[in-house]
């Protein structure tokens, strides 16, 4: 088939050597003409169709970063020239991940496949390595839990590695899920218990992946286990050690709004349901065995081993699933909201713990009260169940999201959880005024728009206009904003401000990607192979992404992606093709494959 290749670019930032690809393309069989039309060309339909007729082209390949942009013109020209409009083939560098000089060969392969009329994904199938049937899941949030359960339920071995003392991740901290207002714990805790009891899941908490070697299908992973200093099997969670422990620190699980001891259990439903010792704060550990050890003496089961040492283990797995999740943006750097300066300005996670029935106020939404702390001889603002409920609450969307100074991207879940907060406040406090300051309401999912409408109908003042100013006037907090739809500048006296803080990848993501040799996008989220076609695979064979670590997404999407990953992993175990890395495929291999598909 006589083929004409046209290069047209959309993005001038797309740094790829078109000349080199064009030279390569000229040598391909059946390619008659190659033209580089440049960046955002204005294509003359008549000239193009004349070109097609004069070169007698039967197939057109449109190559570029986003060739779909130009497809209509080429289709029209082809039709006008009397050719088969279906023979306009796209060679998209963006879709198949040819971004820079390192992926020049892949770009060539993409054009070659298109010129043969073969879809790239059919020709470029990495494979060949036999696959170990064990799977490593890094991160035990809802994504990691779901993926582990899916794989384990299919009868395959899973190693689930979690950095903290319990599995559950952020979802365990939540009160309700949007838009159904289901209790988050009621969905999550049964799954957590399943993970804890599953015979095919080897759960490793307080553990960290320190090195990964090997090739797709046979990774050798070294995992470091931090000493828990409590024997999981014999601990019955009686809590006598906690009463005895003299050290008080802020609870990470409660987003810092309550106090825990140095020996603690993150929350009552934790899995494994056993206490652990916080090395960074334990008096015994800090004094290297000189002081304290009260808990060890108090323990009736003798399960506390304060001298326990860190250990490590080596495992071999075939596939690795990354589900490391996210973290909140450090909001104290955005000073206009007064976070850290005014007591009753909360982040979304802090509010989530405040309103949660297992939180420090038993689910009562109250303002902080001033208490004298004898130890540091200063007044402190703390949440107590006796605190006054707020009469006016402001919820500010897009704090650090969609903001070029912080995160340029949308964090995707904030609009919905903010609406959920408004509902929870309205539900728990009578006659409360809730002001929601939003820029654009992104209620994108099933039932979300209806949920937003419902919240508006409940009497929440939903104000289109972003507030950038929280100030303190005497004892009274004030929020200034522009009510754009009402054409007014507004200033509300409020008792509590909840900031819908943007999301960032969790802190260890960069180190992990370096260890695994996979790439991240410019915002730090993990890169998938192809956002549309292969949203769970990475460049490297046998390594998958699930959940928030890839990009912000809500719980339904996270669970769906986790299950999808499990399907990919299980597929690699049962098909006999083996797995390999896309990046290790050579140009000639793809070419050969494309030709063989072509000749069939």
């Amino acid at each position: 088939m006589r083929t004409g290749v046209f290069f047209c670019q959309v993005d001038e930032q797309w740094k790829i050597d078109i000349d080199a690809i064009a030279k390569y393309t000229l040598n391909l069989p059946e390619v008659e003409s190659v033209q580089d039309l440049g960046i955002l060309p204005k294509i003359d339909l008549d000239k193009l169709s004349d070109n097609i007729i004069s070169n007698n082209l039967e197939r057109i390949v449109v190559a570029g970063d986003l060739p779909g942009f130009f497809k209509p013109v080429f289709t029209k020209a082809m039709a006008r020239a009397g050719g088969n409009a279906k023979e306009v083939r796209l060679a998209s560098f963006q879709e198949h991940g040819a971004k820079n000089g390192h992926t020049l060969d892949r770009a060539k392969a993409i054009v070659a496949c298109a010129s043969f009329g073969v879809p790239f994904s059919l020709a470029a199938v990495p494979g060949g390595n036999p696959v170990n049937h064990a799977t490593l899941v890094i991160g035990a949030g809802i994504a990691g839990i779901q993926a582990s359960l899916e794989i384990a339920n299919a009868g395959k071995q899973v190693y689930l590695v979690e950095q903290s003392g319990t599995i559950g991740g952020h979802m365990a901290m939540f009160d309700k899920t949007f838009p159904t207002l289901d209790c988050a714990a009621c969905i999550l805790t049964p799954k957590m218990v399943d993970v804890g009891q599953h015979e095919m899941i080897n759960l490793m908490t307080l553990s960290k992946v320190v090195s990964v070697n090997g090739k797709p299908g046979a990774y050798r992973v070294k995992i470091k286990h931090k000493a828990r200093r409590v024997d999981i099997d014999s601990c019955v969670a009686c809590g006598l050690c906690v009463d005895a422990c003299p050290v008080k620190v802020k609870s990470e699980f409660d987003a810092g709004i309550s106090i825990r001891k140095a020996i603690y259990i993150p929350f009552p439903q934790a899995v494994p349901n056993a206490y652990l010792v916080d090395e960074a704060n334990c008096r015994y550990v800090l004094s290297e065995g000189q002081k304290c050890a009260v808990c060890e003496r108090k323990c009736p089961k003798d399960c506390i081993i304060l001298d326990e040492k860190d250990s490590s283990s080596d495992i071999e797995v075939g596939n690795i699933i990354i589900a490391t999740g996210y973290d909140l943006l450090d909001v104290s750097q955005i000073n206009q909201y007064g976070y850290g300066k005014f007591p009753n300005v909360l982040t979304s996670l802090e509010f989530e713990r405040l309103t949660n029935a297992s939180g420090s106020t038993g689910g009562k939404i109250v303002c902080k009260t001033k208490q004298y702390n004898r130890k540091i001889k200063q007044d402190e603002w703390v949440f107590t169940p006796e605190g006054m409920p707020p009469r006016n609450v402001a919820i500010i969307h897009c704090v650090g999201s969609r903001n070029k100074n912080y995160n340029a991207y949308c964090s995707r879940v904030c609009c919905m959880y903010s609406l959920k907060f408004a509902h929870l406040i309205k539900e728990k406090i009578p006659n409360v005024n809730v002001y929601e300051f939003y820029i654009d309401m992104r209620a994108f999912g099933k039932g979300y728009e209806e949920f937003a409408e419902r919240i508006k109908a409940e009497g929440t003042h939903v104000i289109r206009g972003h507030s950038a100013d929280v100030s303190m006037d005497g004892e009274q907090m004030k929020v200034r904003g522009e009510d754009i739809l009402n054409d007014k500048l507004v200033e509300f006296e409020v008792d509590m401000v909840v900031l819908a803080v943007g999301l960032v990848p969790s802190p260890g993501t960069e180190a992990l990607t370096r260890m695994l040799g996979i790439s991240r996008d410019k915002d730090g989220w993990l890169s998938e192979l192809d956002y549309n076609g292969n949203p769970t695979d990475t460049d490297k064979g046998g390594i998958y992404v699930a959940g928030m670590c890839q990009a912000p997404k809500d719980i339904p999407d996270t669970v769906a992606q986790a299950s999808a990953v499990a399907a990919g992993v299980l597929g690699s175990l049962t098909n006999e093709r083996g797995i390999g890395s896309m990046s290790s495929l050579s140009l000639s291999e793809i070419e050969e494959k494309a030709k063989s598909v072509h000749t069939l």
Partner: protein
Amino acid sequence: MAIRVNPGYIDVLDKFGAEDVQLCYQCGDCSTVCSHADDAFKFPRKSMRQLQMGLEEKLETSLEPWLCYYCGQCSEQCPREADPGETMMSLRRWLISRYDITGIASQFFNSRTKEIITVLLVAILTGVYLTFYGISGGSIHVYDGEGAFLPSSFIHAFDLTVGGIMFLFLWLGALRMWYFSMVKGISIPVPWWLYFKKLYEIPFHFVTQKRYAECENNGTSKLYMPWLVHFGLASGYSIMIVLIMVFIVPLQAGPEIRWSLHIFGYLATIGLLTGCIYFVRQRILKTKHVQFKKTHSTDWMFVILLIIITISGIVQHILHRTGYLEAANITYILHMMVVVPWLLRMPFTKWSHLVYRPMAMYFAEIQREAIARQQKLVNPLSITLK
């Protein structure tokens, strides 16, 4: 009232410096942080929106650009880097070109070359005219009194003429501003006596620039005191203009220094010099204050001319007092060659805010009270969202 939309308006404003307006996504952060925005005049967000929509006729009648003093908080805050502060600045430039009936202003703002050529042309014309006058009537060896090269009585008349032309254009502009904002731009009745009631606003704002002091950025460096420097600069050239327009004859007399008069000249010179050095430093360093990051060519022209004027004035003064009369005469001509274009280009450049700003405060106060009266009539029980 139907409003004609001008889709190309945003490109027009691009030439005046508003380059990033398209980026704005209407969050309202800028209006929130602005210390001058209130219920009657909500900006900059609204102006940004009107600009995006091409509502040229609406913005033409708007006073809001004049209420902004460009503290830069909005631009620092802007999540889209759409630079609302610079947009307001560009709107002021555009408004100056709208108020100006001659069309010179818009030429100056859009073409640096045209401005430079005009300034050079006026400078050469002035130089040639003054040299011919000097040679024909007097001697270059005499500075003052009988047979002087440039007699101070002649300079007085010359100054008044140049100043008169300048003020004529300025007040023509102010008149158009009144027409746009108070006739075309307001749909509610404005009682005539409000114009008298609020008249004090003009001298008050002219002298104090009070609203500029209100919007200083807190927490920035101690050297950052725009209001004080601006006040020094503005009083500097106000005093200078009074001196050369009214007291030029005694000012130029004799080699001895008349402290009762010259002291004002010295003070004004200090004000001008400090102002110039401060602004040049900020603009070259492009300090973290956003308003110095984008400098329009007309801004540079203003500062450069002012520096030449100040230095040549100082040199001429020293030469005259120390007895180098020939050199003093030549420097004087050079000095005048810069002063004349500097003064004449004023009504067509940013400097005209000297008149437009106090006028805008005055009109804004009138509008505010008119709106309040109207609201009382329409809606005696005002209901707010709260």
